[in-house]
């Protein structure tokens, strides 16, 4: 069984986001970047399945600018076998990314495609579902547990009401939740070894996919700020304020 894992390079989750003054976006210069956190869970799960003997190969793919390759390199350092970097210097919408991934799937013929459930930059939560629509494959979104069976997976999904379990036949798409597993850190020897693992480079425009943007970002602005609150000295004062000032209890 072969698993393809899609990873995205985003602003690190610990960075305090700053909006550009000209309203064109957020500041990315000299800002720490890393792999989208649930994509780390996706890689970890694929590597675990391979380690358990149920998968033969894990391929990491990213779509993005030159530096996006770092995320593939990181995936290789934690156990992916080889990488694919689809190069694109322009911002791509999830629809365009899923069309590119469809081409990669047609070429690689994986049994499973894993990725994070949502990217923490645009917070779109679309790519996995779109890819499964384009391929007409089953989708298991927001996965917090995966059990590999013969030609199928049993997946526990985190939904608003609690948990849902579904069974999907392969080939299939799984989008991973943060609680799926605990991503490992790359050891120094493995980081060194990863440098020798192959990364195939593909130019996005060579794939013959229409990636024309459909959405225009008119402006990006700071959200309204909350006005500063006060510290209260005691529980009694807190309850009085809630009762008589805020009038919420």
């Amino acid at each position, binding site marked *: 069984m072969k698993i393809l894992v899609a990873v995205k390079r985003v602003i690190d989750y610990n960075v305090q986001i700053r909006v550009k003054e000209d309203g064109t976006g957020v500041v990315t210069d000299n800002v720490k970047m890393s792999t989208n956190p649930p994509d780390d869970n996706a890689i970890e799960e694929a590597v675990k399945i391979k380690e358990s003997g149920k998968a033969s190969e894990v391929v990491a793919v990213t779509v993005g600018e030159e530096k996006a390759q770092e995320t593939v390199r990181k995936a290789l350092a934690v156990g992916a076998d080889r990488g694919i970097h689809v190069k694109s210097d322009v911002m791509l*919408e999830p629809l365009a990314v899923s069309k590119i991934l469809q081409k990669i799937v047609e070429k690689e013929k994986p049994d499973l495609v894993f990725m994070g459930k949502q990217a923490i930059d645009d917070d779109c*939560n679309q790519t996995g579902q779109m890819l499964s629509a384009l391929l007409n494959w089953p989708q298991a979104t927001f996965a917090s547990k995966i059990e590999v069976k013969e030609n199928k997976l049993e997946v526990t999904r985190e939904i*608003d009401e*609690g948990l849902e379990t579904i069974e999907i*036949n392969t080939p*299939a798409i799984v989008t991973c939740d943060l609680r799926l597993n605990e991503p490992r850190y790359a050891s120094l020897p493995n980081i060194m070894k990863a440098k020798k693992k192959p990364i195939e480079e593909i130019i996005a425009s060579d794939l013959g996919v229409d990636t024309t943007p459909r959405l225009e970002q008119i402006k990006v602005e700071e959200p309204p700020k909350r006005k500063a609150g*006060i510290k209260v000295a005691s*529980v009694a004062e807190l309850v009085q304020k809630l009762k008589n000032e805020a009038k919420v209890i």
Partner: protein
Amino acid sequence: MAVLLIAEHNNKELRPFTLNAATAASQIDTEVHAVIIGHNSGDAAKKLSELPLIKKVLNAEAPHYENFTAENFAPVIIKLAENYSHIICSANTFGKNLMPRIAAHLDTSQVSDIIKVISADTFLRPIYAGNAFATIKSNDTKKCVTIRPTSFDPCESTGGSAPIENVEGSEEFSNTKFIKREEIKSDRPELGTARIVVSGGRGMQSGDNFKLITEVADKLGAAIGASRAAVDAGYISNDHQVGQTGKVVVPDLYIAIGISGAIQHLAGMKESKVIVAINKDGEAPIFSVADYGLEADLFEALPQFMEELNKLNTIQK
């Protein structure tokens, strides 16, 4: 052209956020039709027809629609799509799972999780966990939009009488099989719509200690929330998680107890009307969004809080 709203329900009743999504849909165009897909879901379809904002209900019923599987739902909506300019649904786990599957089939770039309708093609949406707001204009002829339910008021739920039209279903998608759903039943208000939310974080130190939160929530008639750290640690189940990858809540009162306030948590609660933070670390980021901050050990403060609440003659519910 009219707007198509995808109703969310449990085969008996409408889920509450359908009312919020209807409001959003009506801000795009007054001609709102709603599609309901389910199994033995006639009662829910009837309730949908009573929403005064809805001009027509499209009803598809079949056994394979019982469990809301996106692979089964999407083809029904895609077949209806040609008559509509917009397809609208809530950006909760139901809509997040379903809408991109529709959008990709229609070759449309979805606009996710909008918090404001600026015009029929332009929307405001939070990005980077709500640390920036983006104004997005869609140039697709058909627009797929998911709405953040807490950013739109629920519409009236009675008084209307829209016609209900049965529509053709589609074949079952055989590669996805529903096994089970484990819903946590509770008499408390739903987290997404509660007037008061009491949330616990890593500072609670154990699942047992969450009973301190439960007591306060019971007293106030509140829903119980949690930070991701508390859910990851196993103190409480995932359906309580508030934040960027959990639920977004906008209650009148949000009480954060033992929650440090990572930006991912703030993304899910900072629009609340009044925020209270109780934390022993005076430097915790949660205090930067709190209207009332109490720097104290929660294990001392919570019993005192109960005592003070008990002294009050009346509590709003």
